[in-house]
């Protein structure tokens, strides 16, 4: 090939190389463009993921709120039905209860004719064929009318229906009438009926009567000695002390306050550990609530009934106003619905309060549990301040042990480190001292 031919070939080659270079540049530009688009898509994907996560949280909260609202509305409807059922099936019991104390007081003053009282009580006996209080009242009005044969028959029926409640009722009525010897004998009979492992709930009322001195000093000493022997018997049973400390731990655990939704807003939003932190905070705040509870119980004034009659009337009132065993299933249902309504439909909190508080409504229990109920749930077990103090002082060792178990459980559950999450960034802190490095990292 001539020189000019070679030169032309090189020129053509140069042009081709230049074209290839141009094309490569275009390809590179295109790759950059695609790269940018991929970054944009990745960012969009990350944003979408965050939005989806927020949406999912919002949806979960919406579902929970909807469920709470539905449960709350359902409880509102059901509570009406339960109340109607109680009224229908046991409305007469309420009337017997309302009448009992009034009858005693009216007969003191001679305001009611014996025959009208007997007529009223006869109606009760017929309307409430299983209720102990109706038969007990019948024995009482016949005794007041000096109709011994009828009184004995009614008494036998009353003891058949409920021996210990009737014995306690007569112990109180005799004491009220200053028939002390008869009163102590009824009290003895009442004690003989008790089994510390399976006690009737009205023992709480008896405990109240004894601690308030309703039976006099001698009976108080005898009764407290009997109580000590019950507890010694129970403490010998394997597992009893553990059960008591667990019961107290459960009762005190319920005092955990809610953490307000306005507290620690940043942690709520940015820390996946928040739920555990909130639980730990609530548990720590419970300690002050427990402290205040016992301090109030022991430092507050005790309302001393003004006279023996007033004391006995008060205990009698508690005894006769107590629900009968037959009513308990409905009363329990009512208590549960009331808790769901009080907790604005929050089933978990209502269940936890129910498990702990509703035990005060169980038919038969051991004496250790009666002490716990007397101290912790006075409105449900019907105990006065003096009895609550006695119950707490007799339960001191179990309370301290149960509380220390609770504290240890809560200390073990405190998160060792807290996760912080903002967008795609995640950091950890164990005690807050990492602030500077975390800020730098973020």
């Amino acid at each position: 090939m001539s020189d000019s031919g070679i030169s032309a070939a090189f020129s053509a080659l140069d042009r081709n190389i230049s074209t290839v270079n141009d094309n490569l540049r275009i390809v590179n530009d295109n790759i950059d463009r695609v790269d940018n688009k991929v970054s944009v898509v990745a960012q969009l994907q990350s944003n979408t993921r965050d939005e989806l996560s927020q949406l999912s949280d919002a949806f979960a909260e919406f579902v929970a709120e909807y469920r709470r609202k539905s449960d709350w509305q359902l409880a509102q409807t059901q509570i009406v039905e339960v109340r109607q059922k109680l009224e229908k099936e046991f409305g007469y019991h309420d009337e017997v209860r309302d009448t009992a104390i009034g009858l005693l007081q009216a007969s003191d003053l001679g305001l009611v004719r014996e025959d009208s009282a007997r007529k009223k009580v006869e109606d009760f006996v017929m309307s409430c064929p299983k209720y102990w209080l109706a038969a007990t009242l019948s024995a009482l009005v016949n005794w007041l009318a000096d109709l011994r044969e009828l009184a004995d028959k009614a008494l036998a029926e009353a003891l058949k229906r409920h021996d210990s409640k009737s014995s306690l009722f007569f112990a109180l009525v005799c004491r009220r009438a200053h028939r002390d010897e008869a009163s102590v004998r009824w009290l003895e009979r009442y004690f003989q009926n008790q089994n510390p492992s399976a006690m009737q709930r009205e023992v709480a009322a008896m405990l109240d009567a004894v601690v308030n001195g309703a039976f006099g000093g001698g009976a108080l000493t005898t009764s407290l000695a009997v109580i000590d022997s019950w507890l010694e018997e129970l403490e010998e049973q394997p597992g009893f002390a553990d059960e008591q400390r667990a019961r107290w731990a459960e009762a005190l655990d319920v005092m955990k306050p809610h953490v307000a939704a306005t507290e620690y807003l940043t942690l709520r939003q940015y820390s996946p550990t928040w739920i555990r932190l909130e639980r730990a905070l609530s548990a720590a705040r419970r300690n002050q609530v427990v402290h205040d509870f016992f301090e109030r119980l022991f430092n507050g004034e005790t309302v001393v009934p003004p006279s023996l009659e007033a004391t006995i009337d008060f205990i009698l009132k508690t005894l006769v106003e107590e629900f009968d065993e037959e009513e308990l299933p409905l009363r329990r249902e009512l208590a549960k619905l009331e808790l769901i309504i009080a907790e604005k439909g929050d089933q978990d909190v209502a269940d936890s309060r129910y498990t702990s508080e509703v035990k005060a409504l169980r038919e038969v229990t051991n004496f250790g549990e009666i002490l716990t109920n007397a101290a912790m749930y006075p409105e449900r077990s019907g105990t006065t301040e003096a009895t609550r103090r006695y119950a707490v002082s007799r339960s001191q060792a179990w309370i301290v042990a149960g509380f220390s178990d609770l504290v240890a459980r809560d200390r073990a559950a405190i998160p060792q480190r807290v996760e912080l999450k903002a967008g795609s960034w995640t950091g950890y802190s164990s005690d807050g001292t990492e602030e500077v490095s975390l800020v730098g990292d973020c």
Partner: protein
Amino acid sequence: MGYIDAMKRLDAGSHHENRAELDALIQAIAGEFPELTIEQRPLGIVGACYLGAPYEVHICDLAGGIVEHFERSRAMPPQFERARSLAVHPSYVFIEIYPDCVRAVGVGGAVSVIDNL
């Protein structure tokens, strides 16, 4: 050698070199539970470690017959790790680990029980 003294000696360090001393130490701790059958005895004991940084906790594994010290960043075996927060808490001397519960022995000797931790 008492139980609590034996636990405190875990930090003395000499048993690292002396197997006989380590066995005597484990024996003293196990001897604290003579009335219990082997199944009822604790699997081991966890306590705060005072050897100094980087160590945080130690375990005396009664079943395995070993003592081991753990740094802050290193997890203990799971059955012991669950008691870590309690072990480093100043209110407790050491924590006994059982299959179904842990028992935290307080500074004053009181024992707190936590089921199913």
